[in-house]
């Protein structure tokens, strides 16, 4: 159907909302509460437009298109209404933009600038509210909250965690966990999707800047950094590159320039994880172990499972995540090689993730009292540090990661995408079971951004059912099926963030689905063009086993690379 917008005809599809049609036509109407893929709430009223024949302004996000309707999106009345809304939001908003972590990347700030807000027209009473620093990953500053509700919705509808909700009413309303408790005692799993959703600085990651700088300045410490697979295909965006450009080489160079003594790619440890996990799968398949085997590299998922599905914990792979595995190896094997005490090796990881901060600091994930990883930076934090140090990724020459873990397979690189861990594990499990390589084309079904992907894979004579889910609400549904007796699956990969780590809670704020898709594609392109596509063919992984660990699943490997899980109950 055709509708008329700003005196021009545009196409619209019956049943869709006006905002959807406007966006497709490239007409920008600002929003603060609209969320891609979720039903509109009409809460913020920023998207109001004039529709001929309607008395008041209508929120375009929640107004269905009608044949022949006439719309003005930027009439004086509409723009003035938007400006007033922003002014009212600013009435009780802290004036400390200069000190805010979202300075320069805040939707409220952008709208105030765009709409020409130049004076404080409304002086609202401030609600003094305490900063919530209780979580190891996420800092909540309720004073900066504009109550758009996006964090509440992503937590409930996408993640089915519902750690936070609106509390109170009227001008006293706030977003908080039950009983206004801290996030640390709530059901929060630290995924950080709320941070990506937040238009202001009300939700941010807990920064590990200081720990990292202190370690770099400390001459006694050997400071080692690892970067996760999703980081190198994302961080370029923060320096003006189009989404989906892999900058692994210059990232290595930049990290060295920042003062890190050794730079490694976590994808190497992902290969190691695959050796252990595939071995575990093969063992469980052959010996009638607990199936389906569930992946354990996503700490938000592990946390969720410990909390919501304690009865299914025996399904979880006992493998530590790649971040933790590399940390453990660095503080044992690598420290020995260097001849330094494990305590003098300071391991920093750069992750697309906020839950990794929780994982690294969690007392259950320690080795002989030592944390495997000492500090975790998100992709965003690293970009900030790089900028702070005046480095520009664009004029740097690519460098390789350090020995002895300087090579990774592209299977390890796939860990950044939903379905990637599963595909990497299947390649190696297939080889372990049959001695032959798996034809990669066979697992196309588990690639892509869909939240639930299933396939049946032939390995030798047997056929295995496999599934990859992302978004914890999807995981919850699948776990309920497993709990109810579903038996056709042998492996389930779970990633908490929709689409996997490429869309992780530590990634750049303000990216759209197209950017996430481009990052994912970049990982699969790397795999397509790679000569080393399986973890078991990684010579350096083999050497690590030969020199140090023995074989996958050996006692030493178990000691260093595996962990255990225990039911956990959230207080609220």
């Amino acid at each position, binding site marked *: 159907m055709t509708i008329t917008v700003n005196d021009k005809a545009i196409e619209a599809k019956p049943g869709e909302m006006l905002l959807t049609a406007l966006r497709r036509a490239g007409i920008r109407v600002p929003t603060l509460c609209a969320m891609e893929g979720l039903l509109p709430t009409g809460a913020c009223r920023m998207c109001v437009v004039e529709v001929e024949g309607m008395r008041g302004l209508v929120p375009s996000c929640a107004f269905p298109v009608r044949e022949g309707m006439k719309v003005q999106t930027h009439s004086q009345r509409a723009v003035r209404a938007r400006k007033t809304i922003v002014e009212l939001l600013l009435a009780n908003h802290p004036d400390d933009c200069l000190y805010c972590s979202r300075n320069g990347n805040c939707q409220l700030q952008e709208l105030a600038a765009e709409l020409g807000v130049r004076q404080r027209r409304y002086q609202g009473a401030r609600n003094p509210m305490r900063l919530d620093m209780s979580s190891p990953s996420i800092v909540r500053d309720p004073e900066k909250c504009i109550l758009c509700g996006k964090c509440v919705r992503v937590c*409930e509808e996408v993640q089915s*965690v*519902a*750690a*936070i*909700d*609106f*509390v*109170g*009413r009227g001008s006293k309303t706030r977003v*908080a*966990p*039950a*009983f206004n408790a801290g996030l640390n005692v*709530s*059901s929060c799993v630290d995924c950080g999707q709320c941070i990506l959703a937040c238009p202001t600085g009300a939700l941010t990651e807990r920064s590990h800047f200081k720990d990292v700088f202190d370690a770099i300045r400390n001459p006694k410490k050997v400071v080692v950094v690892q970067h996760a697979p999703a980081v190198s295909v994302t961080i370029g965006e923060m320096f003006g590159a189009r989404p989906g450009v892999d900058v692994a080489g210059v990232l290595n160079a930049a990290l060295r320039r920042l003062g890190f003594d050794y730079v490694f790619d976590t994808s190497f440890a992902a290969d190691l994880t695959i050796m252990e996990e595939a071995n575990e799968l093969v063992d469980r398949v052959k010996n009638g172990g607990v199936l389906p085997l569930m992946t354990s590299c996503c700490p938000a998922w592990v946390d969720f499972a410990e909390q919501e599905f304690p009865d299914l914990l025996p399904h979880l792979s006992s493998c530590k995540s790649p971040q933790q595995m590399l940390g453990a190896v660095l503080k044992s094997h690598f420290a020995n090689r260097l001849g330094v005490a494990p305590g003098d090796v300071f391991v920093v990881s750069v992750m697309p993730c906020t839950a990794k901060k929780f994982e690294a600091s969690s007392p259950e994930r320690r080795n002989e009292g030592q944390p495997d990883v000492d500090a975790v930076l998100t992709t965003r934090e690293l970009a900030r540090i790089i900028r702070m140090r005046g480095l520009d990724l664009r004029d740097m020459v690519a460098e390789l990661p350090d020995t002895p873990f300087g090579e990774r397979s592209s299977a390890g690189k796939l860990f950044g995408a939903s379905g990637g861990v599963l595909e990497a594990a299947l390649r190696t499990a297939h080889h372990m079971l049959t001695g032959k390589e798996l034809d990669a084309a066979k697992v196309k079904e588990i690639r892509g951004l869909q939240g639930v992907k299933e396939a049946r894979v032939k390995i030798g004579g047997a056929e295995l059912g496999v599934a990859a889910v992302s978004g914890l609400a999807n995981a919850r549904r699948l776990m309920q099926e497993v709990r109810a007796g579903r038996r056709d699956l042998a492996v389930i990969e779970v990633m908490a963030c929709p689409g996997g780590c490429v869309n992780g809670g530590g990634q750049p704020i303000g990216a759209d689905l197209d950017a996430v898709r481009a990052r994912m594609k970049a990982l699969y392109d790397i795999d397509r063009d790679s000569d080393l596509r399986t973890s078991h063919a990684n010579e350096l992984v083999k050497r690590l086993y030969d020199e140090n660990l023995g074989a996958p699943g050996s006692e030493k490997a178990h000691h260093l690379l595996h962990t255990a899980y225990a039911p956990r109950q959230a207080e*609220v």
Partner: protein
Amino acid sequence: MVESRIDEVLERHPGAGRDALIPILQEVQEAEGYLSREAIVRVADHLSLPPSKVFGVATFYNQFRFQGRGTYHVQVCRGTACHVRGSAAVLDSIRRALKIEPGETTRDGMFSLEVVACIGACGLAPVIAINGEFHAGVTPDKVNAILNSCKRRSAA
């Protein structure tokens, strides 16, 4: 003891869905005088709702309290007639005297404070009720005397 009263309420709503949330909260408050943390977690569990949601709904409505009532429950009328005759100042002086906000209870458990819309005694405005007993024409300077008489009665 406390547990069994919550149980009693929940047993009256077997297999209830989220639409039963408010009636259940009302019954729990009826039975216990307020909504304890434990009650909210139990109700959430019973209805398969996250505690954050139950707490969110409960705090939206003025009728729900999250602390037990005091020995003396002070209701301050903020209806139109009382407002015109200065109930805002009365409420303010009670808040200052007791150092609590509406919905709260003093630490010693002596007083709790509640704001009500109109208690139907406009002729006596501004009016407050303590345990159902009305005090007419209250002004800020009378507040201390009224509260002190409660304390004396308690001590006796």
